[in-house]
């Protein structure tokens, strides 16, 4: 193996790109979970976003329209989950799984005509001066717009949850839905909005994979990214900025692993490909073993159905 063949600047630069899909999906799921809803269908919503975004971007020639379509598709998809869990009170774990299973099939179905088609090339922004700073320029300031949108989304989520009344109400619903209901808040409506936001973000994350990162459509292309995003929310103890840190750490490891493969490390490719999943498991274990602290941050009503008895 030839370590020196790895271009470290390029590696760090691709880290942000590698992290963006799971960052988008995880920040959406964080909002959903803070409202007390556990949606395990992230993988299904991502893959739906991936195909819808890809198809629309190819048909219209506009990446922006592709992302918009992906967000709408993800949100619409998540509202199936919302309808079942919020109105029909189905089990959230089972319904989330159903969303994933259905999403994988559904996306494969509509994606049939798009296999093998080359995607658009999405322009990278170039800001005079700062994009040209040596080392830092290419690492931080020469990406496509969505990379920065995802960071803004994290900042906005953080600010809304922490400083606004809407954020307070969302957290309250996730903490104690009976109390929120007794105070007159519309628990189901608030949760549906949180679910739809989570779906839209997951759709964007999937579309980022198919429109920017890869960029083409293959069946099952999310390959567990949705599940990793779910793990990331636990890793982040339901705090927005920690989602960002977690996503970039994870992105870094993914790119490093890919670079090691390319550099010809004397380990079969399959074992390197396992590493993202194994690392995610390891992180989950570390986070949950310090349970007393992390568990306090988990929304108290996570995964419980709400039914107004009165």
């Amino acid at each position: 193996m030839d370590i020196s063949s790895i271009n470290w600047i390029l590696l760090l630069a691709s880290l942000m790109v590698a992290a963006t899909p799971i960052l988008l999906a995880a920040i959406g799921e964080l909002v959903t979970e803070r409202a007390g809803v556990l949606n395990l269908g992230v993988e299904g919503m991502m893959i739906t976003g991936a195909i819808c975004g890809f198809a629309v971007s190819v048909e219209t020639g506009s990446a922006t329209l592709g992302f918009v379509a992906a967000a709408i598709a993800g949100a619409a998809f998540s509202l199936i989950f919302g309808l079942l869990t919020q109105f029909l009170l189905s089990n959230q774990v089972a319904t989330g799984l159903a969303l994933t299973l259905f999403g994988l099939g559904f996306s494969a179905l509509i994606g049939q005509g798009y296999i093998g088609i080359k995607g658009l090339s999405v322009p990278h922004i170039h800001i005079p001066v700062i994009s040209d700073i040596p080392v830092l320029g290419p690492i931080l300031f020469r990406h496509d717009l969505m990379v920065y949108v995802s960071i803004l989304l994290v900042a906005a989520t953080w600010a809304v949850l922490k400083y606004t009344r809407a954020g307070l109400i969302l957290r309250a619903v996730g903490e104690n839905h009976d109390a929120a209901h007794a105070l007159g808040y519309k628990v189901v409506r608030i949760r549906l909005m949180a679910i739809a936001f989570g779906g839209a973000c997951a759709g964007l994350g999937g579309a980022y994979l198919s429109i920017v990162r890869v960029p083409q459509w293959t069946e099952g292309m999310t390959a567990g990214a949705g599940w990793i995003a779910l793990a990331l929310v636990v890793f982040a103890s339901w705090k927005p900025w920690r989602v960002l840190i977690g996503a970039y750490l994870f992105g870094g490891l993914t790119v490093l692993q890919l670079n090691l493969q390319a550099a010809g490390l004397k380990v079969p490719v399959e074992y390197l490909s396992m590493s993202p999943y194994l690392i995610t498991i390891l992180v989950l274990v570390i986070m949950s073993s310090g349970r007393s602290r992390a568990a306090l941050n988990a929304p108290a009503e996570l995964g419980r159905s709400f039914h107004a008895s009165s």
Partner: protein
Amino acid sequence: MASFRLEKRPTPSQAWTWATPVLAVLLTMVAGGLMFAALGKNPFLAIKTIFYDPVLGEFAFYYRGQLLVKAGPLILIAIGLAMGFKAGIWNIGAEGQYIMGAIFGAGVGLAFYPTEAWYIFPLMVIAGAVGGLLWAMIPAILKVRFQTNEILVSLLLVYVAEQFLAAMSLGLLRNPEATGFPGSRNLQQFPAASNPELWAGTGIHFGVVAALIAVIFAYILLSRHLMGFHIQLAGQSPKAARFGGVNPTALVVFCMGLSGALAGLAGMFEVTGPAGQISINFNAGYGFTAIIVAFLGRLHPIGILLAGLLMALTYIGGEAAQATMQLPAAAIQAFQGMLLFFLLGVDVLSNYRIRLNREAAA
């Protein structure tokens, strides 16, 4: 807003408990028909091809055997999963345990190649169960030791198992004499390690027999035995279970272990029988479809038996529709996912009454 309101029934409705799966299947046929129509296929012909032809159609003699071949692993896996789901323990990584069972089982068999001895196959059966069990023990132990979420760990381990499967097919278990597509020796050509059809044309192999035994075993355990009582208690009301003396650690290990071992067995019977060899695309998603089977069967052993057969039918009918109508394979996958949606949706009827509001909802 919704113009209906739900009223919790004092006791769950027995009638609806059994009627909801049937209703869900009917609704799925309607919605699926619409989906097929949207794809430009005749919906009635498609539904007939999937649900009627394999059982009673012209070529049913061929399909009927296939039915049990597909239903066997689905039922075997779903029985194990249902135990855990009933107890509130979510093993959703059966696909991974299925793969590991196949690798362990095939690995033991191939280690004896080309010895012919009566004890090889039993050893492989044990190895298959152990492979699945060990793989399921990872999330189980992490859960009881560190309270790590078993849903995420068991699922992530599926991807690890898939990579391991690829590594094995290309490496250790690769057939040294083959030149074509990478994979192990074909076990069907190694009598001491193969799982043949027991009666020609029926599709019954040892895996199908094992599935039936599992159904009976699970039925007795759940309806007659204290362990089954404790499993249901823990799922319905964890605090009451603790009060009743149920040891949560033991329960997690038991349920995960059992479901892992059964999934491993399913993988082992598949690799020695219908599949014949370890290869990169050996796994066909049975571990995930079994989740649908478990829910469709209402987590009840007899229900799972029926649901497994029905789901096998969608596979076979789907293949038939693919061949005769060019219906895409993905359509069947979407169809199966839809079935689970409808099932979960109509499930509300067994626990709640629906009242329509005369006035608009406040």
